[in-house]
């Protein structure tokens, strides 16, 4: 579970690290990804595991479009830039939830009989649920891929450079908007991947994003804003803390542990564990 939190959070961290914008619709991106995965299964009988790349691609486009249509303008605001970003992405989240209710109805849905759903695997006598295990595997692969991408490809370098100095980047002929749009696409694609995996073992409903969004923000902040690696590490910590809290406290209080750890960490290190901003 921790690795999946990490994967959700990495997308958010990427967008944040890139341009200092917190996407308050991140949970809704996840929700959309789960629905896409669900419909691919229902209409084309493609298992969520196989459709994950398709979902990621769809979310990539979606993320880029959101940037071009909304965030680009939000970043131009001369006054109260932070509030404008918060509320424009938050407004978007409300619209997305409304649209999901409108088109998909508020019913709870789930993917029946996926390859992974409900199965467990026994490793050295410990029973582990297969979907979570697969999620962890995909998360690690995605993270390795992202690491390679940021540090080894031209686009990745352009991304880093734009983050550091958008002005200078423009001088060497890189279009800032294109890089940012691609960055948003990439961030959304990562959450798309997470959504596709989660579709096989979570109920899907219009408000599903909200329950994960706060955890994603906490994860990113725990790891430290501006650090993609931090978000991943934050995800693992959050997963572990959640599991530990569930042993000590009643299940309804399991999130309290995560929140308490976040507060503790920022009181000691006000910029998160690996943060630079």
């Amino acid at each position, binding site marked *: 579970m921790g690795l999946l939190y990490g994967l959700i959070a990495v997308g958010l961290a990427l967008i944040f690290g890139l341009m200092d914008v917190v996407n308050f619709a991140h949970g809704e991106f996840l929700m959309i990804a789960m629905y896409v995965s669900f419909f691919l299964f229902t209409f084309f009988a493609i298992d969520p595991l196989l459709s994950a790349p398709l979902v990621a691609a769809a979310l990539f486009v979606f993320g880029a479009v959101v940037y071009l249509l909304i965030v680009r303008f939000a970043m131009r605001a001369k006054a109260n830039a932070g509030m*404008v970003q918060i*509320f424009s992405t938050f407004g978007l989240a409300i*619209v997305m939830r*409304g649209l999901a209710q409108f088109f998909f109805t508020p019913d709870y849905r789930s993917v029946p009989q996926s390859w992974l759903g409900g199965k467990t695997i026994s490793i050295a006598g410990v029973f582990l649920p297969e979907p979570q295990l697969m999620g962890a595997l995909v998360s690690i692969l995605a993270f390795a891929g992202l690491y390679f991408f940021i540090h080894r490809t031209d686009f990745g370098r352009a991304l880093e450079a734009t983050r550091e100095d958008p002005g200078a980047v423009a001088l060497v002929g890189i279009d800032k908007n294109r890089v940012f749009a691609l960055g948003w696409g990439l961030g959304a694609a990562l959450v798309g991947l997470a959504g596709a995996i989660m579709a096989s073992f979570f109920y899907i409903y219009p408000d599903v994003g909200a329950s994960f969004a706060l955890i994603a923000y906490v994860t990113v902040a725990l790891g430290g804003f501006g650090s993609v690696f931090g978000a991943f590490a934050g995800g693992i910590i959050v997963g572990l803390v959640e599991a530990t809290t569930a042993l000590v406290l009643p299940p309804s209080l399991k999130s309290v542990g995560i929140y308490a750890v976040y*507060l503790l960490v920022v*009181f000691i290190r*006000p910029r998160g564990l690996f943060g630079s901003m």
Partner: protein
Amino acid sequence: MDKDFATRRRRDLIIAAVLTALAALAPLFIKDVYVQNILILTLMYAALSQSWNILSGYCGQISLGHALYFGIGAYTTELLFTKFGVLPWFGMLAGGAVAAAIAMGLGYPFFRLRGHYFVIATIVIAEIGLLLFQNWEWAGAAMGITIPVRGDSWLKFQFMRSKLPYFYFALVLCSLAWFVTWWLEDSKWGFWWRAVKDNPEAAESLGVVVFNSKMGAAAVSAFLVAIGGAFYAQFLAYIDPESVMGFQFSLLMALPAVLGGIGTLWGPVLGAAILIPMTELTRSYIGGSGRGVDLIVYGTLIVLISLALPQGLVSLFSRAKRKGATR
């Protein structure tokens, strides 16, 4: 003190007095209970948003966890009333005091945090409060508290037959929050807060005790919000954790101020006057289908207003006024 500023402040006070008087007469013409309900909620959110604005707008410490103080106001009042028979009027003040104390206790570690770390910490602490109340058996846990009906009386601040007393209380609360803001704007605190918001380091070097001024703003803000919470509890006659401490309250307190103009005197009132009726009307006229059209309309408006008017609706008003406000 330059003359423009003094003139503007006197004019603001007169406008506020006229608006309050007009609002007080409104129930003579508006007999429809549904409309009265909307008016009460509008006044309440205007008051809450005005209080939120003190900490987040003037002092620049964006809090998205004010639902905590709202809930504490509601719960303190109702627990004192149902368990110990303390009248809501005293409970209300007790709730305000408890909320202010908690705000200062939390401020101690919280005000070291900056930017997003602070915002997320405020969301998280409100969420912890919500979860704790949901699991606190003595306080009714997730079932909440139903306030026993003891007949209409001002003493117990409880009215079943008419909504008018609630309307007048909400009006007083709203005027009070506005007046406190108006008064603070020109006080030593007001100037300190704006200095802290603009540049804490520079403020500190000029002798502003940054930490104390943040604490002051937090306490005033939490106190007023808790009074609002106590009012809401009496108004609904039923509370449960989600309905007084949920994240949506934190947002509904922030939204009017942001849409109207954050850190301005009139922003929260203006924002609430537009946003709350809009919310209620979209909910009841197009939300009935249960298909989320109200959410689509509402969300789109938030996106458009926040993109088109980053300084809020107040910025639409005359340039002269803006000059005074940003002085």
